[in-house]
């Protein structure tokens, strides 16, 4: 067997928390230099290990899913492989051309035309001018924007914009492709197109793909193996079904324990996210408690819980913004608690995963897989056996109908 195309050896990455928020201004930094005693009395910034001693090998042509909860180190791993950030310890040996597909449309400029953006974006993604020229017609055809090539992309519809951006990215020809889940923006049809293209890239052209996603259906469909990260360490590496099973078990366990302390970016912390009763019967009330703390004063402008299906499809959100339209204020040491209820939960039985989106005055982000809840089927009334849950979608509709039998019209 050839040498692995990627060898990851004892890879660790340490972030100093608060680095971003301390000495934020040159003025403070200079003041700190002069006030020597002040500098020492200040508490050392807390460190977190986003990755800790991760080692595994990827063989040429493999499609590896990278799974794990938020903060498990998935994106950090891709960023190190893509040389966007440096590891603190360990090393990676990469034997091939590598490109990151971290976000469709990176480097697009609104004022420039479609034609100009193809060249610019191609160059940014690592294509040479000659390579772009060679593939130009193909890219344009794939994106179906022939008529608008000389129109600034700011006048494009969002569909055209995404198609063009994806077309450029899809025509990259690296040996190794890194894909972060932000690729999965857009509607269902577009996601399907992305997944098809990735399947083509891996199966027909024998490329190696590393794929980060919370969408277990996509991971299962595309990947042969998965690397399961947990708290920065490698919890498992092997056949995809097995890793997904272990991972879903892990989320369920965390949800059952109720109290936790999950960092949500640099400042916020989720102290509790609990759903009762567990399981909840479909159609009954589901109560929830959510507690947030922060290491520095901040204002939360946006906040909602994201409810996703077991395989990672977004089902609904629970809006937790302040009812008066003002931001939530949060000071260090304080706890912001939300007690609420989802009335007559109209969900089909099954396992649901809960995430959270927040936007505060320092940063914003999605944090997925923070808790789960289980919905049990409601007792059936009547002689019909309910259809299987997989056939019923996610929502139990309250429906009513009348039956009328209409005899065929008599014709003479």
């Amino acid at each position, binding site marked *: 067997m050839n*040498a692995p*195309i990627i060898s990851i050896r004892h890879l660790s990455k340490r*972030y100093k928390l608060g*680095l*971003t928020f301390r*000495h*934020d*201004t*040159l*003025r403070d*930094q200079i003041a700190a230099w002069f006030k020597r005693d002040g500098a020492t009395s200040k508490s050392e910034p807390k460190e977190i290990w986003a990755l800790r001693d991760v080692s595994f090998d990827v063989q*040429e*042509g493999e499609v590896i899913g990278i799974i794990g909860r938020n903060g498990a180190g998935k994106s950090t791993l891709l*960023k*190190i*492989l*893509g*040389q*966007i*950030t*440096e*590891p*603190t*310890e*360990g*090393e*990676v*040996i*990469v*034997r*091939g*051309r*590598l*490109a*990151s597909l*971290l*976000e469709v449309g*990176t*480097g697009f*400029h609104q*004022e*420039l035309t479609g034609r*100009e953006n193809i*060249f*610019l974006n191609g*160059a*940014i*993604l*690592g*294509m*040479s*001018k*000659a*390579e772009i020229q*060679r593939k130009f017609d193909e890219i344009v055809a794939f994106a179906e924007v022939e008529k608008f090539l000389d129109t600034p992309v700011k006048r494009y519809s969002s569909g055209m914009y995404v198609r063009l951006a994806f077309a450029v990215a899809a025509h990259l*020809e*690296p*040996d190794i492709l890194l894909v972060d889940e932000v690729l999965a923006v857009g509607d269902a049809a577009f996601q399907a197109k992305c997944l098809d293209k990735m399947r083509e890239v891996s199966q027909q*052209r*024998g490329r190696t793909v590393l794929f980060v996603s919370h969408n277990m259906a996509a991971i299962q469909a595309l990947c042969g193996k998965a690397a399961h990260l947990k708290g920065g360490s490698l919890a498992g590496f092997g056949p995809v079904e097995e890793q997904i099973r272990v991972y879903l078990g892990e989320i369920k366990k965390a949800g059952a324990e109720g109290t936790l302390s999950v960092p949500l970016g640099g400042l916020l912390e989720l102290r509790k996210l609990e759903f009762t009763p567990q399981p909840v019967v479909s159609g009954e009330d589901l109560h929830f408690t959510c507690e947030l703390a922060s290491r520095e004063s901040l204002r939360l402008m946006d906040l909602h819980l994201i409810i996703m299906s077991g395989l990672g499809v977004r089902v609904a959100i629970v809006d937790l913004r302040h009812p008066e339209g003002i931001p939530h204020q949060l000071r260090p040491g304080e706890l912001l608690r939300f007690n609420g209820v989802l009335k007559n939960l109209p969900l089909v039985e099954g396992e649901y995963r809960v995430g959270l989106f927040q936007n505060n005055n320092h940063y914003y982000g999605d944090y997925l897989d923070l808790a789960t809840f289980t919905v049990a089927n409601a007792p059936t009334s009547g002689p019909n056996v309910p259809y299987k849950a997989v056939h019923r979608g996610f929502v139990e509709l309250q429906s009513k109908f009348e039956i009328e039998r209409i005899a065929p019209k008599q014709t003479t």
Partner: protein
Amino acid sequence: MGKIPVQRPVLMSRTGIHMADNQRNTADYVRIIRPRHGLAALDWRELWRFRELFLFLVWRDILVRYKQAYLGIAWAVLQPVLTTLVFTILFGYLAKFKENGIPYSVLVMAGLLPWQFFANALSESSQSLISSERLITKVYFPRLIVPSSAVVTGLVDFGIGLCLLAILMLANGVAFTPALLMLPLFFFVAFLAALAAGLWFSALNVKYRDVKYIVPFLVRIGMYVSPVGFVSTKVPEQWRFIYSMNPMVGVIDGFRWCILGPAFEPNWTAFAISIGVILVMLAGGAIYFRSTERTFADVI
């Protein structure tokens, strides 16, 4: 593997550059990613490999800038013309400055052009990394490309300014001198000064959020501190040494000499001091930039 020939390695290894591009074999693309420590030197090979991206960024900035053709070009014309006009009215007519029979407007504009090139390049490049945040957190390339391309983009405005100056000189009957041949040399020095300042301030701007307020202030003060509205021989002899620590002093004096002739020959000691300051700033800027660049994606 490698069924599709790849034209040129763009996003790849340090060792791969010397191999034949189309007889690619993955073993030739080995790259080792490990932590770097200490101060970092420039990686010229890598910069050369990313030259196309550099040119694309310059091309983008120029396109965007002159896209609204009238506004873009009008701004490039109005900025030097209006500033020259204000200086001429204020100091030329009211304060009655005059030098060696050269019309004051020509004198001002000859100093103003290199200054405005420097000031614009500094403003643009100091913001360049911040405004490329999305690129920097998503894609790998030598970060040095970003502020450098912002400095290079300023060449277009400078070229427009030179044409305006030529028109002004013809209109005032000021003769062109052989010293004009030295202009590219002094321009190169101005370029290095702008690059040095751009490297420092773009890297500082990533880490410290108040730098974006400091730069416009420096630019505003700098125009009066530098010999734009006057000739540096006006500065008392005992202060000349300190004064020449301002890197733009040597550059602007040199420009005047090229454009207005031997009567404006610069003080070469002062010029050497300015050059020395620029080179130290440039080396320091490159080292600071390279050493902090590894954390850009983490703190930006």
